[in-house]
């Protein structure tokens, strides 16, 4: 049952991330459904920044109660941000946003100062031209480099605990991520490395006798995964899965060459996590993952004594990503 707990956690996290994607509006596109005022703050007693015409496209940034924070193209001042009551907005998915119909000239509640230059795109009567469609910056393909720190609880927990004194392995690594290849699709390549020291043992009836002979275990997984990032705001949940090329090395004192272990096997890895944009170029990521590699353990050594035949395990990782 304890071994299944990480599976339950992972499934719950995946479900939660899907739910969050369905509910949140950050980064979504919207259309003004009826002529509506937009304010600097979510307060209808304030003087509106502008009265927006029906059909005007909005980019939704945040929600407070019945209010939505949105950006829009002001015909005079360019891109502006304000708060609009949600009943005037029809929320749409950003990627499926159709070309908005030509907007009627807004009814200006405020007029520009006399003699002020007209911004481009505005007619003599201050009417707004239809804004050219463009993708939001977050939705465009990007590339990111990242460094990661991870802690994995090994599936062969008794074997690792016997030899190294811990069933948890800490690793460092890095990689490259290509984002928004198609909608939220991304691919990623990463390499990690962990090195742990221990001592050789003898196992008898699950009792472990340390023998004082140093042993060094190095694990180097190279992951290639495909994933899906949901949404384009500051908080982005994601799931991914793929293959791992795994190198396992085990060396010890007093060993002949053929007695040390240097195995290379292919397994799989699945991950789910949440990404936070600190700035446009800097992002933090936390995820849970499961990695499994067969045919390295279980035929000899402590892993045979404990009947544990899988490398890898459940882990958590944090990463700093640099890029768009």
């Amino acid at each position: 049952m304890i071994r299944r707990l990480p599976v339950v956690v992972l499934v719950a996290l995946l479900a939660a991330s899907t739910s969050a994607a369905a509910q949140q509006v950050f980064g979504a596109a919207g259309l003004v459904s009826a002529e509506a005022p937009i304010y600097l703050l979510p307060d209808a007693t304030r003087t509106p920044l502008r009265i927006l015409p029906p059909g005007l496209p909005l980019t939704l940034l945040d929600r407070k109660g019945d209010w939505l924070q949105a950006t829009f193209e002001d015909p005079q001042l360019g891109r502006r941000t304000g708060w609009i009551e949600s009943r005037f907005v029809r929320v749409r998915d950003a990627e499926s946003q159709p070309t908005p119909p030509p907007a009627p000239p807004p009814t200006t509640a405020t007029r520009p100062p006399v003699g002020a230059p007209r911004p481009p795109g505005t007619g003599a009567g201050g009417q707004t031209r239809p804004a050219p469609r463009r993708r939001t910056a977050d939705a465009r393909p990007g590339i990111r480099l990242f460094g990661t720190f991870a802690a994995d609880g090994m599936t062969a927990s008794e074997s690792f605990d016997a030899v190294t004194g811990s069933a948890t392995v800490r690793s460092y690594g890095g990689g490259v991520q290509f984002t928004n290849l198609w909608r939220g699709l991304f691919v990623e390549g990463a390499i990690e490395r962990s090195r742990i020291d221990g001592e050789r043992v003898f196992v008898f009836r699950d009792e472990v006798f340390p023998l004082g002979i140093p042993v060094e275990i190095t694990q180097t997984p190279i992951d290639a995964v495909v994933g899906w990032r949901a949404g384009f705001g500051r908080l982005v949940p994601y799931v991914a899965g793929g293959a791992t090329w795994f190198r396992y090395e085990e060396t010890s004192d007093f060993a002949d060459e053929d007695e040390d272990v240097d195995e290379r096997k292919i397994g799989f890895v699945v991950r789910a996590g949440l990404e936070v944009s600190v700035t446009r170029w800097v992002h933090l990521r936390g995820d849970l993952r499961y990695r499994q590699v067969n045919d390295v353990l279980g035929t000899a050594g402590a892993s045979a004594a404990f009947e544990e035949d899988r490398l890898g395990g459940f882990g958590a990782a944090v990463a700093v990503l640099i890029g768009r």
Partner: protein
Amino acid sequence: MTRSVPRFLLYAIAGVAAATWPGSVRPLAQPATDPAVMAPADPDRARGLALLRALADDLDHVPGEVLVKFRAGVEASVQAAVFGLAPAPDKGRRVRWVGELAVVSIDSVARPIAVAARLAREPEVEYAQPNYLARIRATPNDPGFSLQWNLNAIEASRAWDINAGAADVLVAVVDSGVTTQTLAPTYRLWNGARFELVSIPYRVNPDLDPARMLPGIETSSIRLFNPALATQPVFDSQGHGTHVAGTVLQATNNTLGFAGVAYAARLLPVKSCVSFWDIQFYLGALGEPGFANPELDGACITSDVIAGVRAAADAGARVINLSLGGPGPSPAYADAVRYAVERGAFVAIAMGNEYEDGNPTSYPAAYAPDIDGAMSVGAVGRSLRRAYYSNTGAHLEIAAPGGDVRDGGLQGVVYQTGLFEPDFDPGSGFFPRFDRYVDSPKQGTSMAAPHVAGLAALIYSQGITSPAAIEAAIKQFARDLGNPGHDPEHGVGVIDARATLRGLGVAR
């Protein structure tokens, strides 16, 4: 089985000849003037004489004695009643206790086997048995080559890279003893015509480090009967114990002699077996003229061995070597070995050397498979094939080098620094000496068992402290021989010291 009478007569004739023609047989030790030889106490005298007669008659058990173990909680009055079922000796019944085992004297004309069977029927009795005789298990060879192929066969030298000789682990060798002091005690010895007081020189093996040797424990009845012998240090008057102890822990890297498997361990010699000369010394002390049967050389009385095993365990031995055995089923052996294992001692037991004599089951080796922490050890020769003499059977657990003269001649036996056997060969003179050491070649499961005992000491020193785990480790890392897996000729295979000490990583 060779009868003793002709040889007895031969030695008697030799003694008369020596007395008649001075110089024809040269005493190897000088007559002494110190008459400090004491006679044994009277009750012991009777038992000792009976024992000697039995040995001379080549019995497989001690006459006039049975061993009885009661179930837990049996009161002394009930025990006395049970003892009363056995015919008492003329001079009254004597009961001596070795742990929970009673050594009960019975009428010397009664058959111990029948008496034991009668006592065993009582519900309070767990078991009763004759006090069997075992034999130490070596077949000596002439001195020759000094090749220790046996240590290479078990990867000992590479194991020493990992563990330099099992420092300070206490290993008990329950055997014919190991000389622990250089002394020349005085004995009254029959020279074929009369008794002489002779100073017999003993010397500590120069290839055993005295700093790693404890004074030793004496449990041999024959010597204990004689107060003069009982108070002496432990001596080896046979050579077997010295050779066996040498395999376990002979000094190594000292430019002298040979190497031992666990050369930094400490030795606890336990003298539970006797030699021809131990008996001869006793006869002299009794004032009994004549010579003992040379076939008695290396006899071990069950109760003495049991006392030795228990004493070794009580003294803190982590490993006990038993290079002895006999054909008599003896649950008392199993109890003693369990007693030692429960106190943290691993026990290595020789399988026996009678394969070509009917391959009888040998005890206590036959009990080893039922005791986690004790192993029965068979012998292989230089090419790692079963030695021609090594007993086989389903109860064989492991194999180790014991030497095989048919597999490589004198280069195929086991060499250690040992006593110069012509100095004390029963046929070579009236007065022996035990102070000269040479390259000593021997073969036998007696030689195989101390390889396992030495390895057990290394394993203990490396960190595996449970006797059952030591046995499991030895088995797990043995090199399989013969048919795959366990087979009755090699057990699970031949020991591999290096692999055992290396243990396990995660994957390999």
